[in-house]
């Protein structure tokens, strides 16, 4: 393993979430135990079996852009707008003077997912070509009459690399730039990669995060087909209940979680407030959802951090709230932390905001980074009845003081891609 004198610290947090449009309001909602899960308002969802989500009711991307930049919003799907807004909030929170940054040492890494087309973009083209027989488009008509009815930059609005691209353009970030498209683990892999790039001295300053919104008709249809969503339409705030015995599925949310991450010396030179330090990272594949792959990722991260499991204050869990996923996660956590006494408890931010997909890991981790700076860990919502299949201690009911200086964030996909990160409280 290569040793590096460089260190990576988190110096800014940008949150766009169902429970707050900046880090401060996000934190207030977490402490007050306020859920962001509600009936879907953005469109008529009455044709779906699931009609609740962690929707952001009053998001207007214009609020986050200079006037001359706003025309670019036309080529940004909501997911991209959330990312751009989150990046701006992270720079604001980090009190970053962009004129003082070296653009060539300024990188961007984002987690992103498949972005569904807005149906409205295709109505006119559909009307001239899909009107002959059900289930078939007349491709001759589509080619001749349909294509000219779609806006020229249509495809760019939905490319997953456009989160990082727009952010690099808006902020003149010419350093390394990557878009990790690995479902729910994407933004943690992005953060891990940026951390490594900083340590190997190929950048000094990073905007890193993830964003996603699946709260649109096409994405919701697809997610409903996968049959893993909670059906608790009548009690939305109680629907997402990680590790609770009564959990019945995940709840979709939308938003962005973005960090300013920079080399320690760079942060000191510009007099930045430091929230925390990234000290370890690991990734692995877990075939067959046994939990051992997740455990390997965690062990790698702990080893790099040079700490033992009992030094960890709490685990920031994936906590998807589906019966299988939480049991799988708990098995992996138990393999590492099972012998710790007192036990290392688990916090699951999804209980407030739902599953933000590619934006989830960083948004969830932000809760623990804020907890480290406040010395207080928020409770997990809706944890009422322990599940024997989930051998973990869940932080619930009320906030609890931080007692140890490290947090472990874990994340994974339902196909087995896992990652873990160790973050250290800054004193």
């Amino acid at each position: 393993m290569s040793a590096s004198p460089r260190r990576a610290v988190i110096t800014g947090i940008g949150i766009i979430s169902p429970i707050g449009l900046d880090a401060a309001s996000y934190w207030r909602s977490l402490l007050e135990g306020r859920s962001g899960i509600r009936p879907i308002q953005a469109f008529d969802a009455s044709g779906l079996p699931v009609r609740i989500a962690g929707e952001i009711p009053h998001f207007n991307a214009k609020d986050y852009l200079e006037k001359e930049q706003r025309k670019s919003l036309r080529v940004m799907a909501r997911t991209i707008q959330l990312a751009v807004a989150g990046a701006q909030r992270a720079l604001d929170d980090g009190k970053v003077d962009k004129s003082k940054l070296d653009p060539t040492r300024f990188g961007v890494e984002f987690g992103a997912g498949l972005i569904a087309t807005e149906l409205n973009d295709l109505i006119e083209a559909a009307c001239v070509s899909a009107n002959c027989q059900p289930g078939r488009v007349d491709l001759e008509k589509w080619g001749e009459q349909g294509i000219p009815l779609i806006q020229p930059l249509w495809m760019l609005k939905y490319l997953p690399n456009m989160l990082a691209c727009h952010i690099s353009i808006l902020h003149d970030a010419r350093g390394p730039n990557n878009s990790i498209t690995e479902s729910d683990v994407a933004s943690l892999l992005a953060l891990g990669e940026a951390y490594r790039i900083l340590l190997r001295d190929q950048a000094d300053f990073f905007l890193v995060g993830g964003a996603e919104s699946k709260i649109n008709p096409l994405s919701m249809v697809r997610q409903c087909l996968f049959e893993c969503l909670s059906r608790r339409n009548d009690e939305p705030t109680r629907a997402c209940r990680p590790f609770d015995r009564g959990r019945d599925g995940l709840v979709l949310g939308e938003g962005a979680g973005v960090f300013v991450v920079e080399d320690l010396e760079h942060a000191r030179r510009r007099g930045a407030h430091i929230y925390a330090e990234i000290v370890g990272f690991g990734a692995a594949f877990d075939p067959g959802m046994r939990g051992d792959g997740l455990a390997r990722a965690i062990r790698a991260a702990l080893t790099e951090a040079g700490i033992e499991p009992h030094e960890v204050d709490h685990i920031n869990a994936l906590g998807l709230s589906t019966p299988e996923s939480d049991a799988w996660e708990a098995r992996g956590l138990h393999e590492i932390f099972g012998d710790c006494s007192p036990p290392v408890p688990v916090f699951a931010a999804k209980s407030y905001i739902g599953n933000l997909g590619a934006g989830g890991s960083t948004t969830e981790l932000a809760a623990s980074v804020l907890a480290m700076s406040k010395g207080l860990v928020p409770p997990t919502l809706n944890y009422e009845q322990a599940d024997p299949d989930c051998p973990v201690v869940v932080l619930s009911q009320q906030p609890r003081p931080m007692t140890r200086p490290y947090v472990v964030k874990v994340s994974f996909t339902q196909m087995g891609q896992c990652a873990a990160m160790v973050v250290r409280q800054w004193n």
Partner: protein
Amino acid sequence: MRRRVVITGMGAITPLGHNVRETIEAQLQGQNGVGPIESFDASRFPTKFAAQVKDFDLARFIPNCQRWAHSGINSQFAAAAAQEALQHAGLLHDDRVDRNRFGVYLGSGEGIQDFHNLLSWIYQAYRRETRQLDTAVFERGALSVFHPERESEQELHTTPAHLAAHFDLRGPNYNCLTACAASSQAVGEATELIRHGDADLMLVGGAHSMIHPFGVTGFNLLTALSTRNDAPEKASRPFDLHRDGFVLGEGAAMLVLEELEHAKRRGADILAEVTGYGSTADAFRVTDSHPDGRGAIACMEAALKDSRLNLSDIGYINAHGTSTKVNDSVETLAIKKVFGDLAYRIPVSSTKSMMGHLIAAAGAMELITCVEVLRRGVMPPTINYETPDPECDLDYIPRTAREKRVQHALSNSFGFGGQNIALIVSRFAG
């Protein structure tokens, strides 16, 4: 001293062949993989041709391939190319290597949307009276016709997950999608994972097909594709004065990256060494690359610095060379800026002239081409290069392959939106 990374296996499914050997031999003969689009009726599209993979059947490569039954063609290409690369490396069933230290990093594209059912239900849910879409009608309709597994297989993490599960690769697992730079970036970042010690082995590469109605529509709307419908085989003409856009290709390219000592210990055949990687962003516009090539210049310089080589060490450049007006002149400008007068003495070719643009998979395929240049001492040509463009005045190896003993080769990949990647591979010198 940092850990060194070598290439010990390669696999490819391309418009020129179903494996690396066929593809490279076709390249060296200057063969053309472009023809009329056959997978759907494109007869009234602005562009009616592409470079397609011919007669592909995954079962011929992987007998037990049920895992991919509902996958998109991208994921199936990936599986076949991965099988070849792992077999080539002698790692399909090698119990001596620690599979926990063997990861996957792909720059792989999305699956293909259910074009007909999606459009059909948009049409049926549209209410002319209100000029609004009745989303509840769309939802019920789409729920009744969309195929759950096929929808799920479009997701971007499914391709690397299938490879990891099928070939038992339990190390770090990533997919990045930085448009046309994706699989090059995957090679670069996977190299860094091995250097850092996160893994000893990485299966890397990409797979993509955008030869479907939405894909061609999207690129036609951007006016990025050639529309030379009267002579498709002449359409991809990088650096030629009369180039008018790129030609869509499809396929997959996979490589096995391995830590040098690990490769030596197991007696692996070392094909080449990955010596340089550079990654930058243009930070200019989502639609155009920077007119001075500033990101392209910076990424080549970063890769050279990483490799600790001199400019004069580079013996061949596999260009991004898309055959669009802007790319080819800006890339030429950038190469001249980086290499100065030496630029005129370094042969540069674009294999996109023969196989089209494999989008996310392009970079990994072009890196395989570079490795074969090192191994065979023959450089593939740029076909269809007929009329010089004053703005493109380098040696593009026109029309026929050329022999040259090359020690180090550079491969460029520039993504739509401004991500730039340069990779350098070197003959393994012990």
